[in-house]
């Protein structure tokens, strides 16, 4: 009996009513673990004076910020769908020239941290930015301001739509093309067939990507801060900067309430029982690619514009900095070392691994045993994703220190010395923070791939003498592996980019690419920023290739 067997067997043992108690308990434990930092928020909120709390929540500015935040979430999500779905369709189902190239290229913006994107956008398109410099001699005095709502929505969209792109792509790839064939032999045009057959099947994929986008837009701090839009995270940040930890906690709670609403909406739209179906024979050898015909050129142009905006702009600006920058190493604390990239990669890999392992039971339970409970656990994992990194970070600071002194004290009482393992400002806690934040990306990808495995396949395996766990290992696991790995790679990417929690929880002296970039932030030495930023993009880009190579 292998380790997996031993793990899975007792977990998936079904009671007669068909509900696997072990699996449910494990899912519950994982959900509880990722929700645990919420306790800190509650404790802090309880310290807030009630009148003051009410006055904060009710003040007109709060309402306005709420509306702005929701508007931003709606706009970014909507535009991401408008970008992501057609791009996914173009790269999967049509004869777009250089499809492989475009697939990678349009997914790559995900590797650019949105704050970096925003920053380079300001540099390029802001007043007196590079573009303005180019246009000024042409007599174009002003370009629309990059600041404010439109700019924020644009930048966030450009750097989050790949979530929708990737999840939609996965659904499209596993979608049984025979259904479209059936529709078309019934005289339904290609477009109508797309609307009536493909789209409903893709909906779960699209919404799971859209959910990630929505929650990202809600919880992102860097972009709205740089582009000067007052949203929740920015207000929370201000509270933190002014030592209003309790107020910040209160606002965070409000943010999480919005998250809950978004989650509820998503489960209504995206989780219909009929969705996420995949036929026995996805992509049966036949050639069902859509010929673009006269649309080939506009389609190419579309892809090119997106890629130009998302990739060429930031990379161009970074390279420009690199070549232009004077040698002013004196202002840099530490020289750039490739060890930083290695550190980033190590923690990100570890996080990806943990997420992949933790996501499987939650996703499997949610996909196979459709019940309120399963759905609750599944959704619970999303809460951490919308928790601002700084709130989460401080919560874990508190728990980490508290554990350290409690365990240390106990150990000293018992053994006369502190033998408790280092947790605070050690990698496990940092990785845990990442898992809390990014688990849903893994859960989502895994869940939809589990759903795509026809139940009768595991049944067949079992009638051939395989235990539940062996069937899981031999049939389910290989079939969901692309989803699991794809999800893990997403986690890897976002972990590479994560800043606030990293700053709070990294082991002292453990420098990563983002902490290093952050350290340079004020130096105005953009050339120095360019190296780690490009390193970040390259390393993450490689993992994007991993994600996409899972597809075939």
């Amino acid at each position, binding site marked *: 009996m292998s380790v997996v067997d031993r793990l899975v067997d007792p977990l998936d043992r079904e009671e007669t009513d068909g509900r696997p108690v072990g699996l449910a308990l494990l899912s519950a434990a994982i959900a509880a673990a990722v929700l645990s930092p919420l306790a800190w928020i509650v404790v802090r909120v309880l310290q807030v004076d009630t009148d003051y709390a009410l006055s904060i929540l009710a003040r007109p500015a709060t309402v306005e910020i709420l509306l702005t935040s929701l508007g931003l979430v709606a706009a970014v999500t909507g535009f991401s769908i408008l970008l992501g779905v057609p791009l996914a369709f173009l790269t999967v189902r049509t004869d777009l020239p250089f499809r492989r190239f475009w697939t990678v290229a349009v997914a790559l913006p995900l590797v650019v941290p949105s704050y970096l994107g925003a920053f380079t956008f300001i540099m390029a398109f802001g007043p007196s930015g590079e573009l303005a410099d180019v246009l000024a001699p042409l007599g174009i005095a002003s370009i629309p301001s990059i600041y404010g709502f439109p700019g924020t929505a644009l930048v966030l969209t450009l750097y989050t739509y790949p979530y929708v792109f990737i999840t939609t792509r996965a659904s499209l790839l596993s979608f049984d093309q025979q259904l479209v064939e059936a529709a078309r032999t019934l005289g339904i045009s290609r477009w109508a067939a797309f609307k009536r057959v493909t789209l409903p099947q893709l909906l779960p994929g699209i919404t799971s990507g859209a959910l990630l986008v929505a929650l990202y837009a809600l919880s992102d701090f860097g972009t709205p801060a740089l582009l000067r839009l007052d949203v929740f995270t920015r207000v929370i940040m201000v509270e933190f*900067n002014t*030592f209003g930890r309790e107020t910040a906690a209160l606002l965070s709670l409000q943010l999480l309430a919005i998250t809950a609403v978004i989650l509820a909406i998503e489960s209504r739209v995206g989780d219909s029982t009929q969705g996420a179906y995949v036929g026995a024979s996805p992509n049966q050898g036949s050639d069902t690619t859509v010929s673009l015909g006269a649309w080939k050129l506009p389609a190419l142009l579309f892809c090119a514009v997106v890629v130009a905006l998302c990739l060429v702009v930031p990379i161009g600006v970074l390279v420009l900095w690199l070549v232009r920058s004077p040698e002013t190493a004196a202002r840099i604390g530490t020289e750039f070392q490739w060890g930083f990239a290695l550190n980033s990669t190590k923690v990100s890999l570890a996080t990806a691994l943990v997420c992949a392992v933790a996501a499987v039971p939650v996703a499997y339970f949610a996909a196979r045993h459709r019940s309120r409970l399963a759905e609750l656990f599944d959704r619970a994992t999303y809460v951490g994703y919308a928790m601002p990194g700084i709130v989460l970070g401080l919560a874990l600071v*508190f728990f980490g220190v508290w554990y350290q002194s409690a365990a240390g004290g106990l150990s000293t009482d018992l053994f006369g010395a502190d033998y408790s393992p280092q947790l605070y400002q050690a990698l496990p806690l940092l990785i845990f923070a990442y898992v809390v934040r990014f688990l849903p990306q893994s859960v989502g990808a895994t869940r939809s791939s589990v759903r795509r495995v026809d139940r009768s396949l595991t049944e067949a395996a079992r009638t051939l003498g395989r235990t539940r766990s062996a069937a899981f290992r031999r049939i389910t696991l290989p079939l969901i592996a692309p989803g699991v790995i794809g999800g893990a790679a997403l986690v890897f990417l976002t972990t590479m980019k994560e800043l606030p929690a990293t700053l709070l929880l990294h082991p*002292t002296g453990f420098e990563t690419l983002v902490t290093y970039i952050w350290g340079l932030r004020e130096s105005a030495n953009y050339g120095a920023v360019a190296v780690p930023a490009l390193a970040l993009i390259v390393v993450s880009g490689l993992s994007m290739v991993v994600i996409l190579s899972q597809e075939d």
Partner: protein
Amino acid sequence: GSDGSGGGGTATPAPGSTDDGTATSAGTVPEPRTYAADELYNIEEWRGSGPLIENRPDEYTGISMLDLPDLRGELTVYLGGGEGGLYENLMWRIQNTYRDFTVTPRKASSSQLANTIIEEATAGSSPADVFWAIDAGSIGIVAENDATVELPERVVRSIPDTFHPTDQWVGTMGRARSVPYNTDEFSAEDIPNDISAFPDDDRFGDAMGWAPTYGAFQSFVTAMRLLEGEDATRQWLEGMQEQNTGTYDNELVVANQVASGELGAGFGNHYYSRLVREERPDAPLELAFTQGDAGALINCSGTEIVKGTDNEELAADFIHHLLSIEAQEFLGTRGYEYPLLPSVPPVGDLPRIDELNPPDLNLAKLSDLEPTLRLLRETGVL
């Protein structure tokens, strides 16, 4: 004791390497005195280079790193901000000076680290030995939350009282509020001496920029509130808004915008303009200072010893190093901040710190941010 008095020579061995085995104790720290530049410890290396560094003094009063006790042991420093690595760079240099000294900096924004230290203190104790941050507010709030220990008098003795208003912390470098202006738009005389003149002057309509989310700006408003009262501050803020003052994220952007003519003038810390000048030497950018009001506030970066440290002595000595002539020269010549050691002048054509006319204000009070923020929000600036 490091008595490597052969300073100035390029081959001067580091103080730690001439270890004579007699551990330095607080009692043996010599009094501050006046050093000739070449008595100091490799001053040319500490000093920056370039045209701005031409007229450095020949002698300094204070205490040289050579006369400070050797540092031995390990120190964790929470570094808030850090001027793009400059503070960190200084710590590396100090570490490299001694054989058995390791400093481990932990960098984040100053408020974030202040929050962290407070949380850590609440939950048990902090791993930090020293907190060094770029704004007095964050330093002050940690002290107020009873998370620091008193600094020895010998360490802080050369720093003017303004920059160590309590025993709990000491300032390291000064940063003056200023008005960067575009010389194509304004001449030096055009810029008022009085901060309260800006809202009433039509010339500043649609021409000014500020960065209200930036800590230094908020400190400036806090100062105004403390000096002029809440109502006057509110009026001033509202007046500036009526002037259609542009909002930016940080003051480097403001300075850049001024330099490129996007803005006529702005509010910002003085060194941002210097940084812009460094990048764009020909930019039509100059600095003006108001007199005796909040607009002329000199805030400071500061440092303190975190309560619960096992290395209190070492921490104090380390802080003492930050206040040495060499360190002050290092930070001053490379980051354009104001050295707080009065004998170390600021770089280039900046007015000396005692030529500025800052308001009379206890900097520790700058941590009273709450009412400022309320005000900023109520007026819609934030």
